[in-house]
């Protein structure tokens, strides 16, 4: 596995959010989250106000990671879909490409079948969009040396002082 930062550009996010909005509409879901496998939330759509999406992202990634280990132990390359059934709300989780996870939260206004169908479509769309992101990242990276080192360093320092200095 390579050490690679996940970089999302503005142009990508528009396309990603478009795809997520379509998914919500088509599948009649409540909300969707797109999460980096390392647990960082990439973006979300739909009704997420009442959700602690940061924590959710970390836990979804953790859950997916452990499921993947379980798969390995039973001799499966990967469980590509994960489904948690609740009393009211359910979560359907799919892998998007190599390093992102799409989680759809829905209730009984729709069905698992609908969600599965559209989540699969969407994850294919997203995979395309994200791989585009990677390509552009590779192209954008090498040049453009920056001369803001010192300014950055001190602004960072004072910021960390502010936050991490203990209250009396």
């Amino acid at each position: 596995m390579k050490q690679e930062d996940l970089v999302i550009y503005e142009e990508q996010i528009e396309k990603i959010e478009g795809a997520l909005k379509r998914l919500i509409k088509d599948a009649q879901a409540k909300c969707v989250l797109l999460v980096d496998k390392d647990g960082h939330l990439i973006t979300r759509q739909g009704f997420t106000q009442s959700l602690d999406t940061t924590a959710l992202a970390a836990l979804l990634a953790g859950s997916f990671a452990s499921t993947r280990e379980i798969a390995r132990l039973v001799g499966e390359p990967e469980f590509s879909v994960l489904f948690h059934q609740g009393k009211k709300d359910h979560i359907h989780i799919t892998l998007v490409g190599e390093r992102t996870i799409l989680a759809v939260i829905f209730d009984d206004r729709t069905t698992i079948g609908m969600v599965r169908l559209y989540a699969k479509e969407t994850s294919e769309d997203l995979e395309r969009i994200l791989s585009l992101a990677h390509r552009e990242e590779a192209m954008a990276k090498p040049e453009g040396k920056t001369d803001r080192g010192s300014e950055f360093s001190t602004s960072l320092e004072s910021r960390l002082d502010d936050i991490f200095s203990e209250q009396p």
Partner: protein
Amino acid sequence: MASINYAFKEISCKIVFYGPGLSGKTTNLQYVHLKIPAKSRGELISLATDQDRTLYFDFLPLDIGKIHGFSTKFQLYTVPGQVYYNATRKLVLRGVDGLVFVADSQKSKMDENVESLQNLADNLGEYGYSREKIPLVFQYNKRDLSLLNSVEELQQALNPKGYPHFESVATKGVGVFDTLKCISKLVLDQAKRKELFPDRKMEVVEADKISPERTPSPVATAGQATEAAILSPADAPTPTAQTTVVEEETVPVAEKRTTPREVAQENEPEVGLKVEEVPQKEGDPMVQPPRQESPTVISWSAGKSGKRAKGRGFFLWRLLNKLLNR
């Protein structure tokens, strides 16, 4: 690895607290959670057994606000220390941007410390991560107890190459924030070096600073609210509430009051560090921080491969002096 979102101007980094069972990793996070104001942190989530032992991980998200216009977040994780939890411990390491090794200073725990450090090296190796590129800080915890190893003994056994280290009493909070601040800075300096805060977005950043009213990110506005309204008219959010960028105040003052201090740093004497070699750089090292190819200051201690760390160079050396001399 870090996740950078240029649309939301957000950067998110993962810091993992590693170490043997009961060394105080969870206590570190609990203290940080207790002391940091609620607006800068999320909830502390612990996946623990009935006996309060970490089963999978603890998780604490921090939002330290804007740095160079980027909303900057840290995700703090701990791993379960017990030897038999290696499967889950390894999963938590995935995508790590910075490491804090929390060692138990008690004499009786030295073997466990060494074993855990070796396990860390092994797990990083299995992921194919190049260990030298991941910032690392040591914390020698439980300094309040008796029958302790001296710091010199700990340094020799765990950290012969002199990564930054701190003494701590995590239960009382001693050393906790020093450790956190150091690793945060190393991680963000690394992100900076990798040019994850790019110049090409600077115009946007400056504009932010000038106008006191934050303009919400264009991609995270009305469309979503409409969508939500269709789904759930009763509790539809207002458009203003629906934004993915975490609320925080820009702090132009903090960002500007910096230059004099920085200049002062230039003349600081070099003190108190076991530095192997001090890289000589032509020109002003502050203007052009050394790249990955530059000479080594510090190298990894636990690994068997004996590979040298590359490239933190002068930048880190300065930083260490700064932090250790405060």
